[in-house]
């Protein structure tokens, strides 16, 4: 059976309480619910913005493919992924990943798998701006290693 999934890409703030609450309510009878939230770090206190852009049609395709792959590897009930674009500041949430399964191991592994692929295999880009200047954030070697570890 195909896993129930919801995907959204938006430049609006993520309401994590609402997303978490809805995901937990929808999966009230699942044995395991894993929720991951990625935030903007405060690397330059008081002076940092992160601007995210994406190629939305391809990003949605990629995320759908990650979900299909995850559900072929683990026994999953439901996946919700919300990803921000636009201008963010420290403390803002970049990504919400919710995974539900009957048993904890499936949801835990799948959440990590989905994040590893979101980091370096979907067309999103981040530009960091601070008093130190601005630069495009490049994937780190560890991001590629994390993804490769699933092969």
């Amino acid at each position: 059976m195909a896993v129930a999934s919801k995907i959204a890409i938006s430049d609006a703030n993520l309401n994590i309480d609402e997303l978490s609450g809805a995901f937990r309510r929808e999966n009230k009878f699942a044995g395991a619910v894993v929720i991951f939230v990625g935030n903007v770090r405060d690397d330059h206190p008081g002076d940092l913005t992160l601007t995210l852009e994406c190629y939305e049609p391809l990003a949605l395709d990629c995320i759908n493919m990650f979900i299909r792959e995850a559900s072929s590897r683990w026994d999953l009930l439901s996946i919700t992924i919300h990803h921000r674009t636009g201008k963010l500041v420290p403390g803002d949430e970049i990504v919400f990943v919710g995974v539900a399964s009957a048993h904890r191991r499936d949801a835990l592994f799948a959440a990590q798998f989905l994040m590893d692929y979101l980091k370096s295999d979907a067309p999103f880009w981040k530009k960091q701006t601070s008093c130190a200047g601005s630069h495009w954030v490049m994937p780190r070697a560890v991001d590629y290693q994390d993804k490769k570890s699933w092969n």
Partner: protein
Amino acid sequence: MRVLFFGNLRELAGTAETSVPADIEITTVQELAEYVANGKSELQAALCAETTKAAINAKFADFSSSLNGADEVAFMPPFSGG
């Protein structure tokens, strides 16, 4: 044909999007990269870098892919999501 640039490629191109006349004799993504770089060596090097990915009609494509039926081609630097 629409040509899209993302991330630092957009900045190097000075635009997020350009268009290429349908009747121009360009057959592959590689040739398109050279055409849109229009002699700007830094942009051409970035477009043709090994780490740059391309998409035709929002599907990943190789640089050797044919542009036959291409309405939209995107050039994308390394991804950094999540």
